[in-house]
């Protein structure tokens, strides 16, 4: 590992992939730096795919585009291009998008989460809807957001026996994080509610409801409103 810029380590993942490592922890400030770097490199560096995670940024490129005249890989040239893109003055900082997600809080694990937090169910819902979250990264499945910003009192370990199938739209807590299952998937997070929103639509040009670094707020709805919204959105895939 060699430093590219102050306190950022560059690790070669593969012939066509580097990883910029900003830290080793799940931490708001570290994740902030990841997204700031991703935005800058996306704006100023062509043909390099930037994939943010909690504390690291994957850069994936086409080796053939970075060959020197002698046919050797121009790693130094790529490094210089990254450094140059990095030092560009950032274009006008875009305010993060804020997405409001309606949730019917009737998840099967909600009573257990309340017991674990020593709160009433109403207090759990109030705390879960009070926070503003940030999409730290998407992964596990297309459109699955790992959200930072959970009220620490609501943190709860994953289930020791993961479910073989969690329904699409389930809103859940796993450790310090909260997230939403975009499709029916196996999963070990604690299910606290469900949203009628479609998180990922393969047929859409912008397929994911949420993107990296978006802000998210949850809004409590009752079963009637869930049904009305679900009818509008169309059933989950």
């Amino acid at each position, binding site marked *: 590992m060699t430093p590219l810029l102050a306190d950022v380590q560059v*690790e*070669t*993942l*593969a*012939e*066509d*992939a580097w*990883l910029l490592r900003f830290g*080793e*922890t*799940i931490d708001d400030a570290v994740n902030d730096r990841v997204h700031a770097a*991703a935005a800058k490199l996306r704006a100023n560096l062509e043909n390099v*795919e*930037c*994939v*943010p*995670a*909690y*504390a*690291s940024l*994957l850069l*994936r490129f086409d*080796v*053939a585009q970075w*060959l020197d005249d002698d*046919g*050797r*890989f121009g790693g130094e040239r790529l490094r210089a291009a990254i450094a140059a893109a990095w030092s560009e003055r950032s274009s006008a900082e875009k305010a993060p998008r804020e997405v409001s997600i309606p949730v019917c809080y009737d998840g099967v694990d909600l009573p257990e989460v309340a017991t674990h937090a020593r709160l009433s169910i109403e207090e759990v819902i109030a705390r879960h809807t009070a926070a503003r979250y940030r999409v730290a*990264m*998407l*992964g*596990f*499945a*297309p*459109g*699955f957001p*790992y959200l930072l910003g959970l009220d620490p009192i609501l943190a709860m370990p994953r289930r020791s026996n993961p479910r073989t199938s969690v329904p699409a739209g389930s809103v859940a807590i796993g450790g310090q994080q909260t997230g939403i299952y975009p*499709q029916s998937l196996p999963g070990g997070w604690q299910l606290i509610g469900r949203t009628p929103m479609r998180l*990922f639509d*393969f*047929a859409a040009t912008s*397929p*994911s409801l949420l*993107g*990296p670094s978006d802000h998210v707020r949850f809004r409590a709805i009752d079963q009637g409103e869930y049904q009305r919204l679900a009818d509008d959105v169309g059933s989950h*895939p």
Partner: protein
Amino acid sequence: MSVEVIKPGLLTSLQDAGRTGYAPLGLGRAGAVDEPARRLANALVGNAGHEAALEITLAGPTLRFQHDTVVALTGGLIEARVEGQPLPAWTSCFLPAGSVLRLGGMRHGCRSYLAVRGGFDSALVLGSRSSDLHAGIGRAVQTGDIIAIGEHASADWFRSGRTMQALRWGLDPQPWLDYARAPLALLRGHHWEALDDASQHALFTQRFMVSKDSNRTGDRLEGAPLRLRLPLELISEATLPGTLQLPPSGQPIALLAEAPVTGGYPRIGQLAMVDLPRLAQRRPGDTVSFRETTLDEALQRLAEREASLQRLLQRIGQRLESA
């Protein structure tokens, strides 16, 4: 023009070069696990190269061609017959309308590719026709499926007729299909140093066996378990095809084309890109061993492989034109 699926085979899916650009949204690339084999199959039918081919796993489908069709089979060596006649692989073949192609067991390798002139023409999903079984895009082909074939000019190198025809020349499957099962080149991963001494040694000396639980997401490798010095508390970060992960069982997983975009297991190695198709052609029960490589060597082998693939693709095009 189209093809009817009479029997689907074990796991047959449409694959092109994959779906790029959606990793930040949690969606990987998918695409053929043996990409050079897919590109060569396309070249042998005179396609541009980006077209989708059928990726066939271990036991092949039975297909009825409703119109005259030019086809090519590459990748793993599979039993292939049309009306009882063997269909040669690694060359260009003409099948008259109504032909039934029966693909059977695979003699060598794990995945074969069937390309048709014009390419298989399913709907594009986010820019690609690749099925991504892990992400839920597309699915394996099923009995009764009708797969469309894209528009194309007829092939000059065959005269239309009532019987199967094949070119007098074909490609040597070597070096594209790996017969030697030599050790695969592996770069040390970020967490290689966290392996205990015996496991660091074992990774590059022991023989693993490809588990039957392997799929397009990854090959599970069975062997004496590898151990970390101390348990690691890791947070999810990027994973790629070729990433060798170590779950708590100590049995490594080598990720393939449908690798998830992030993972939280220790990354103990990264397979050299040139050896990814070689791994993908090992079948359950086959052995796998690794030798340590350097980035320079891996890059050089990749450049050499690309150069010889490009030369061969060009030569195929020239020979088809002059036929």
